[in-house]
Structure formats: C-alpha cells, structure tokens
C-alpha cells in the first residue's frame, strides 16, 4: 500500500474511520491497560503475527532453502512469500530487490559497506539532514572516515521542516549520495521525499531513504519515488523484532559486492575463490530470522488490509487533537510542523520538568512515552535542548489515551510547580 503523493496524505482520501476497538482486541499488550504512546520506538504486535510465528514453531520448524523435506519446504515457501508481500507493499519491480535484514540500521550499514565504501572517493559529497536518526548518520560518518568523502547537513526551519533552499543549493555541488528520512522520528515531519528524490536523481546522486518511520505510517512506492535504496524495520510496523527490509534498485545491487560472507550467499566456494549467489541471496549470509520474516509478512498484510490511508488519517486526527490540547498547557513547548504535515509523533518540552521526570510521572499514570534524545543528538543540539519527551501514535491509539497523557502532563506540572 502506498500513498499517491509525498504531500499530506489524508487530504482527499477520506478512508472509512478505523474500528479502533476491534483493532485493539488484536494487540495483547494493550490489555495491560497501559496507554502505549511509544509506537515510533517499537510497535505492538497483533495476534495474527504471533500466530504466524507460532505456526512456524509448531508445524514446520525447520531451516529454509536447504532441507529436502516437507517442513523445510513449507518454511521456505512462507519465508519467500514475505518477499512477494514486501515487493507489493513497496511496489518494487522484482522480488530480487527485497533483501532481508535485522532492521533499518543493518540495511543502511549494508549500503554503507557494499556500495558507499566502494564508490566514494576523497572529497565526494554526502548530503544528510540535521534531523536524521543516528542510524542514518553514523554509518555515513564511518564511510566518510574510510573514504575521505565529506558530509553536509541540511538544516531545518523553525517549524521543523527541511530547508529546501539549502537542500537545492547542496545539490548544486553534485553529491554522490543523498540520504534522508521519509519521516522524522523526533519531529514527525513528513519530508517531501518524492520531490527531494527527484531533485537528487536529477543531479546524478544515489538516493537512500530511511523509511523506518515512513513505511509503517505512509508506505512508499519505490518506483514512483525513484529512490535507489529504501530501508525499514519490521518491529515498527507491527512485525516482530529481528527482521527488516532493504530495498535496492536491481542495477545497483547487482554491481555491489556482498556485505557478509557465509552460508547461502554463495554459488560455489573453493579454497581458491568463490562465486556469489544471485540476488537477493547474495546479501543474505547465514541463517536468517526465519520465524521473524514470516511474522513480518503477516504484519504487512495486517496493516495493508486495514489500510495505510485509514491508519494515517486516524493518526492525524489524534495528532491534531493532541497538538491543540497540548498547546493549551502553559510552558509546554511543541516541536515540529502542523498536524497536516506530520506523522503521529509529538515531541515536547515541559518548562521546569526534565523529560526524564516527565516520563517517570507519566509512567506512574500508566502512560508510556519516550524521553531522551531519540537517537537524534544533532537535532537536539539544533533545537537547543538536551532531550525531549515524545508521544507517538499508531492504529490502535485512542483519543482516551491522549486524554490520559494530558491529565498526566498537568499532574507533572503540579508536582514540579
């Protein structure tokens, strides 16, 4: 499922509203009564996903590709079915472009090792943005160290949106690589990723999109977008931990050397040399996270069936409601753009109360939020805060949970008054 434009999604779609109560019944953790407002960190996982992994464990628990017996065949079939599910989800041309990883971080590192270290030369430019997650920063810093490439960062404006003027100016310098997040995990900003990709492709750059926060809430059409790489994590899209996806454009993947060496990524191995398996196996060395890949396929089916359009609309209504209510709290500083241009992520600072203390008080109210730098330290420095508190929503989040957040925030103010 992909959105038809990278500008605000909900506008004309008018999806039928989510049946949130029915959805919540699928998520066992929610029965604990905790108002879980930390889905941008990791999502909850619904029963069908757990059941799919259970089926593997109890009915066809075997390794894939290798065994010549039924359980192994069944496991292989289910495991490979996820690849087709993901191909459709991303609208990739071929299943060979879908590589299983542990998550976004491994996907980006794979590109950093197998593509960037081989293709960047001293002085070559890498363009990143100041809002990137460490997973889309540190790998490139390591690449720059290894190759002598240099990095420039696109700044944000006061509304928490990327300075497109600056971005265009940097593109004039003909960067070799442009890497940015589809959606910011701290600001919630939905970046104009299609326009940014098109502009970067026009100057010949390779474009990697960090879809960790985009895939679960907006989806993507990689062909329409035109990006070269797109990475996301299963655990943020209702899938299990331990499985994620790297999409890579076939021509690039074919030309890249393998990342890790090991079982299943080879064609022939001898003491004198080795030839590699075709895509995608070339990049999938060793026993993969079989059960988790199967779970990921089920998760994507699950959210796709409900519909990303409807999910996004639901999140946006909650976000609008929360932003409005929070802006009425004295001394509460909100980061990021207006609801229409953001995903269900709200980072904030409560004057006089440290984000960690906010989170602790919220926790005592049974409200789970994240506090810290959210793995975006350069952005923290840019915003001139050491840390923020962050509430984030997903398809199972209710207005009632937002209300509980508001009550708890006022209590934090009372305690620290």
């Amino acid at each position: 499922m992909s959105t038809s434009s990278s500008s605000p999604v909900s506008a004309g779609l008018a999806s039928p509203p989510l049946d949130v109560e029915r959805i919540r019944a699928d998520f066992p953790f929610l029965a604990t009564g905790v108002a879980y407002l930390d889905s941008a960190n990791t999502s909850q996982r619904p029963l069908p996903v757990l059941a799919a992994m259970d089926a593997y464990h109890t009915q066809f628990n075997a390794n894939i590709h290798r065994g010549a017996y039924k359980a192994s065949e069944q496991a292989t079939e289910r495991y490979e079915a996820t690849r087709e599910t993901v191909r459709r989800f991303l609208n990739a041309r071929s299943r060979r472009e879908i590589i299983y990883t542990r998550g976004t971080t491994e996907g980006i590192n794979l590109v950093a090792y197998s593509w960037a270290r081989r293709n960047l030369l001293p002085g070559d430019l890498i363009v990143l943005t100041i809002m990137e997650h460490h997973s889309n920063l540190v790998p490139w810093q390591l690449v720059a160290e290894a190759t002598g490439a240099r990095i420039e960062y696109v700044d944000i404006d006061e509304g928490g949106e990327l300075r497109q003027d600056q971005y265009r100016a940097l593109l004039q310098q003909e960067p070799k690589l442009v890497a940015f997040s589809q959606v910011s995990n701290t600001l919630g900003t939905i970046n104009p990723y299609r326009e940014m990709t098109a502009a970067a492709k026009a100057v010949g750059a390779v474009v990697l999109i960090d879809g960790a926060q985009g895939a679960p809430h907006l989806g993507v059409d990689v062909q329409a977008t035109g990006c070269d790489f797109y990475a996301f994590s299963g655990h943020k899209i209702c899938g299990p931990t331990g499985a994620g996806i790297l999409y890579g454009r076939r021509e690039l993947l074919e030309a890249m050397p393998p990342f890790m060496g090991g079982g299943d990524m080879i064609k022939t191995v001898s003491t004198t040399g080795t030839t590699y398996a075709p895509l995608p196996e070339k990049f999938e060395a060793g026993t993969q996270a079989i059960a988790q890949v199967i779970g990921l396929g089920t998760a994507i089916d699950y959210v796709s069936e409900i519909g990303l359009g409807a999910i996004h609309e639901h999140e946006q209504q909650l976000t609008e409601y929360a932003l409005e209510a929070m802006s009425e709290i004295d001394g509460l500083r909100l980061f990021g753009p207006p609801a229409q241009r953001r995903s269900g992520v709200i980072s904030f600072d409560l004057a006089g109360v440290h984000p960690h203390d906010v989170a602790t008080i919220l926790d005592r109210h049974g409200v789970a939020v994240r506090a810290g730098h959210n793995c975006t330290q350069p952005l923290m420095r840019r915003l001139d805060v050491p840390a923020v508190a962050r509430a984030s929503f997903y398809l199972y989040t209710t207005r009632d949970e937002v209300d509980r957040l508001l009550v708890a925030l006022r209590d934090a103010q009372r305690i620290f008054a």
Partner: protein
Amino acid sequence: MVDDQFYREYILDHYKNPRNFGRLEQPDVSHEELNPLCGDVIGMDFRLAEGKIEDVRFHGRGCAISQASASLLTERLKGMPLEEARKISKEEVLEELGIEISPARIKCALLSLKVLKVGAYGLAEGEFEEDEDDS
C-alpha cells in the same frame, strides 16, 4: 493524580534549589560526565586542601534525580577527607536519595558519583561501569 511518593518534597527542593550549584574559580580538579541516555551532563569543581575536599560546586542541567543527587552529594562532600570520599558507595548514594530508583534511572542517580570517582580519583570510566556491571 498520582501519589507523590517518588518526587518527595526534599527531592524537589534540591532540584529547584540545588546546593553548591555553580563553578569554583581555579579548582584543583574539574570533571564532567555525560548520561548518554538523555544527554545530560554534570560537572564538578573541587578545591582540595590537606587531604580534604575544601570546597565543591556542581554545574550542568539534568533531571530531578540527577540534580538532587548531585546536590545531596556535594553537601556531604564538603570538608570530607578524600580517603572517605573515595569510599562512598553507590548504595549509599541511592539510600540517601531515599526513593526507589528504577533501573532506567539509576544512571541519573549515580551520575554525580561517577563525576567524583572518575574525576577526583582518575578511575577509568570503564572501571566505574564495570563495578556497576557487577553490582
């Protein structure tokens, strides 16, 4: 509204009115440590004389737990023989705070102690962590 057992009056008092907050001019030892979880930094300046901590100030921003803990620690340190200061244990610091600290907040509560141990005693950072590790 939740009970205020966690953020007791004196914690909040130390947070809002931290004792020995600021810098010393020409300290004998000065050291900062970072809590990588939240990016908070606490630093301490020490003036030493005759094997004692003659004066101490702390600076940096942080949560109520780390600030109160630093404030309480400096109160205790002033005038204390270095030998004695070296022996202050994590348990003592946590006990003095007097509230139940969750694992996630332990680093906040012990940040100032780390500044003392790594700064004033030149313990390698690893050592402090390690002994935390094994506690």
